[in-house]
């Protein structure tokens, strides 16, 4: 039977699809800390885009504990961990010829990051 019926559709939409998990997992990093994105090139699903791999940024904020997409997509588990907004300076990503005063914030999980 379909889960989504005419009666259940609006309540289900309203309930939403948060990836937040209640697990009390310690954060590996703190706001303000310098981090480097691991040079991981998995064949499966990942949410670390290529343009930031190997680059150094700064933790802007800790969003809390959420599902880890790489393992969730592979069916190997939710692997709850912290997700952070990480700030990268434009020139760090695109080189010295890039304009100044441009920054990119990317949401990244503990497993994508090393201390820098």
């Amino acid at each position, binding site marked *: 039977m*379909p*889960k*989504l019926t005419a009666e259940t559709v609006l309540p289900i939409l309203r309930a939403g699809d948060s990836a937040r998990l209640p697990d009390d997992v310690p954060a590996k990093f703190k706001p303000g800390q310098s981090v480097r994105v691991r040079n991981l090139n998995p064949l499966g*699903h990942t949410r670390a*885009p*290529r343009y930031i791999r190997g680059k150094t940024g700064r933790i802007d904020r800790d969003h809390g504990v959420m599902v880890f997409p790489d393992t969730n*997509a592979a069916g190997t588990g939710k692997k709850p961990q912290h997700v952070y907004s990480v700030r990268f300076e434009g020139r760090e990503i695109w080189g010295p010829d890039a304009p100044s005063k441009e920054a990119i914030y990317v949401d990244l999980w503990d497993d994508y990051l090393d201390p820098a």
Partner: protein
Amino acid sequence: MNGAHDMGGMDGFGPVVAEKNEPVFHADWERRTFAMTVAMGFYGAWNIDMARHARERMEPGEYLRTSYYEHWLHGLETLLVEKGLVSAEELEARRAELAKKS
């Protein structure tokens, strides 16, 4: 995976062009594809990360050539077949049947 979907920083696509007063859906097949994808998202056979990965696995040339909801349709068909909910043969047969009628 390092697919075509991972396009941040890719050059050559030209300017961003916005359609004025764009409708939410441009064709009925887009409406139905959207709704079926969301509905099957709740069915429980897969999660959102699996759904994204199914779209990402489109052949790169095809991904770049096709529209957004075509990516969704590809993803949905792929997942349904991989999870054994619908077979490729059933899809082909039904398409052939409907093609004869139209």
